[in-house]
C-alpha cells in the first residue's frame, strides 16, 4: 500500500509546512492558559548520514510549561528521532528553544542537561553498577570538571530514591532489578538531574499493563509536584490519550495531526496514518479507546 500524504482531513490536523498552524494551543489542558513555552521546536529536521533522507521533516511545535505532550505515530515515523533532536543528541536543522527561551549550541551538553532530562528507550545498564551509583550519575550536569559529588548531590539523590520508593534497592546491582523497578530507577536518575523538561522515549514499552500504568501515574504525579514539562514518545494510544494533555501524530517524519486526545484519536486520522482500520470507542470517563479491526476475515478453524 502506498502511503500518500494528503492535506488535512480534520480540523486539528496540520500540514508540516505551516509552523504557525501547528502551534494551536491546547483546548482543555489542565495547565490552563500556558504563559510561555517550556520547549519550542521550529522547523526541526533530522537526517542520519550525509545526504540521507530526512527522518524528521520540518516539525514545529510549542510545548507549554507543565504540559504533557505525547508523540504518537506508526513505527519509523520519527518519534524517537524528534525526541533525540530535542535532547540535543542528534544533529538537526531548525531550532530547539529550551526553557527560558535559551538556545544552546550542539556541544554544550552540560548547559542543556540542566534544562532537559532524557530517558532512552533501552537505557544502558553497566554491569556492576548499583542503583545508588546510577541515580547519582544524574548529578553530572551540576558538577564541574574536577569536582566529585558533594554532600548536597548525595542528599538530592537520596531524596529522589526515597520519593520513588527505591531506597531499599540502593546497593542492589542494576542488572538484578526487574523491569518495573528499573524504569523507576531510570526515572529517578532523570529527576536527580533537576531539569524542567523530561523527555521519555517509550517509557512503558518493556512493561506489562499494570507496571506500565504505574510508571505513567508516577510521571504524572511528579509532573504536578515538580512542575515538570513532559514529552514522551508513546506506542500505546490508549495510555497516550489518557495521560497526555496533547498528542502530536508523526507520519513519515512529518507532523500530520496535533491537538487534544479527543481531536487526534479519531477513526479517520488513525485509520489513515496507521494504515489499518480502527474503531474508536469512548470509555465512561470520556477517554478514547482505540480498537484495531482485522483487515482480513479470520480463517475458519477446522477441527478434524
Amino acid at each position, binding site marked *: 500500500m502506498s502511503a500518500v500524504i494528503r492535506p488535512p482531513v480534520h480540523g486539528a490536523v496540520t500540514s508540516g509546512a505551516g509552523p504557525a498552524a501547528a502551534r494551536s494551543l491546547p483546548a482543555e489542558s489542565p495547565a490552563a492558559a500556558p504563559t510561555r513555552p517550556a520547549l519550542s521546536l521550529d522547523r526541526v529536521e533530522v537526517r542520519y548520514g550525509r545526504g540521507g533522507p530526512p527522518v524528521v521533516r520540518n516539525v514545529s511545535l510549542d510545548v507549554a510549561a507543565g504540559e504533557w505532550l505525547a508523540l504518537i505515530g506508526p513505527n519509523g515515523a520519527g518519534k524517537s528521532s524528534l525526541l*533525540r533532536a530535542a*535532547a*540535543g*543528541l542528534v544533529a538537526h536543522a531548525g531550532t530547539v528553544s529550551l526553557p527560558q527561551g535559551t538556545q544552546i549550541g550542539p*556541544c554544550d*551538553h*552540560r*548547559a*542543556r*542537561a*540542566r534544562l*532537559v*532530562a*532524557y530517558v*532512552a528507550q533501552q*537505557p*544502558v545498564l*553497566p*554491569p*556492576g*553498577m*548499583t*542503583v*545508588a*551509583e546510577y*541515580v*547519582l*550519575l*544524574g548529578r*553530572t*550536569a*551540576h*558538577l564541574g*570538571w*574536577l569536582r*566529585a*559529588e558533594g554532600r548536597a548531590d*548525595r542528599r538530592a*539523590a*537520596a531524596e529522589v*530514591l*526515597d520519593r520513588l520508593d*527505591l*531506597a*531499599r*534497592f*540502593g*546497593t*542492589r*546491582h542494576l542488572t*538484578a532489578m526487574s523491569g518495573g523497578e528499573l524504569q523507576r530507577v531510570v526515572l529517578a536518575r532523570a529527576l536527580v*538531574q533537576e531539569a524542567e523538561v523530561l523527555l521519555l522515549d517509550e517509557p512503558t514499552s518493556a512493561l506489562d499493563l499494570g507496571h506500565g500504568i504505574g510508571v505513567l501515574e508516577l510521571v504524572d504525579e511528579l509532573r504536578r509536584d515538580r512542575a515538570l514539562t513532559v514529552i514522551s514518545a508513546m506506542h500505546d494510544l490508549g495510555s497516550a490519550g489518557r495521560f497526555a494533555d496533547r498528542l502530536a501524530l508523526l507520519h513519515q517524519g512529518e507532523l500530520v495531526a496535533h491537538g487534544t486526545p479527543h481531536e487526534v484519536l479519531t477513526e479517520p486520522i488513525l485509520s489513515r496514518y496507521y494504515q489499518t482500520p480502527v474503531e474508536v470507542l469512548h470509555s465512561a470517563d470520556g477517554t478514547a479507546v482505540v480498537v484495531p479491526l482485522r483487515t482480513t476475515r479470520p480463517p475458519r478453524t477446522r477441527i478434524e
Partner: protein
Amino acid sequence: MTAPAAAAPGGGSLDGSLPEGLAEGDGMPEGLAEGDGISGAFRLHPAALAATVAVTVAALGLSVAVGPFRIPLSQILPAVADRLALPGAHTTLTPQEQVILFQWRLPRAVLGGLVGAALALSGATYQGVFRNPLADPYLLGVAAGAGLGATIVIGGHLQAGWGPLDTVAAAAFVGALAGVLLAAALGRGAGSSPAALLLAGVAVASFLTAVQTYLVQRDSDGFREVYTWILGQLVTSGWGDVALLAPYVAVCGAVILALRRQLDVLRLGDAEAASLGLDPGRVRLVLIVAASLLAAAAVAVSGLISFVGIVVPHLVRLLVGSSNRVVLPLSALGGAAFLMLADLGARTLASPAEVPIGVITAFVGAPFFAFVLWTGRRAIA
C-alpha cells in the same frame, strides 16, 4: 566510608564494613540491603586502599631483598634513610651491598613498579573508554605501534634525549596513538560490538608486528638491541630509565585519575552520557591520548610486556568493585605490585639466567584472560 549509619536492628552490620562490590558480590539477600547506598556510592573504601598499598609495599620490599645477594628486609629502610642523609640514620650494610641496593635492586624494582602502574592504568582506562572489558594496550595494537616506532628509532640509530624527552619515547608514542586510532577506526567500521574492536586491534597489532619483524630481520646486526627488547625486559642499572618514565606516569596518571568520575559517566554510553551533560568525545580523546602516552612510555622503557593491563584491572573489579573511582587508583597500585613480583620471578626462577618478564606475565595472564572471557560473556554480550 560513612557506612549505612542506621544499621537495621536484625541485619548483619557486616556489609557496612565491607567494600561495596564485595558485600554484594552476587545479589545480596533482601534483608541485608540496609541504607540507601548513596553514601557509599562510587567511594573507594579505605580498607581496600590500605590493603592494596600494603601489597605494593610488600612487593617492593621483596623485590629489593631477594636475589643472589640477600639483603635483610630490616636493613632496607635504615639504608635508604642513611642514603638520604636523614638525621640519626645509620646503616650496617657493606659498601658492596649498598651498591647492589642502590644501583641495581632499588632502581629495577621502582622501574618495574612504574611500568606496571603505567600498563595497568592505561589498560583500565582503555577498558573504560571503549566500554570493553577486554581492551588492553597489548591487544589494541598500542604496544605493537609503540614497538614499531621504537624499533625504527633504535634501528636507525636516531636515539637522542633531553631528560624525559627522548626520541625513542616520542616515536613509541606516535606509534601507540596510531595503533589505537587505527584499531578504533577499523573496529567502528566493522560494527559496534566489543568483539569488533578487539579483532581490529589484533589485526592492527599483527600487521605492525609483522612490519617490525621484517625490519629486524633485514638488518639483524643493527637491531640486535631490539630483539631482547621485544620480549620485554627490565634490565637497568642506575636511575636513568626511572627518571625517563616517572614524569609520564605522574602527569598522565594525574590526568586519568582526575577524569575518573567522567569515566564512570561514560559507562552509560555516548548518548546517555551526553544527555547527562558530558561531552563524550572530548573526554574520550583526552583519556585515549593520556593512556596511549602512558603505555608508550612504558613500552619505550621496558619493551612489550603483555597482559598486565588486563589482569590487574579485572582482579580489582572482581575483588573490590567496578566503579572507575575504585578501579583506576587500585589498578595503578596493583599493577606496580604485579610487575615487581613478576620481575622477581623472572630474576629468580632460572637463576642465574633470567626469564624474560614478558614470558612470566603472559604465563599468568593468558589463562586469566581466558577466564575473564569465559565468565564475562554476559557482560560483553
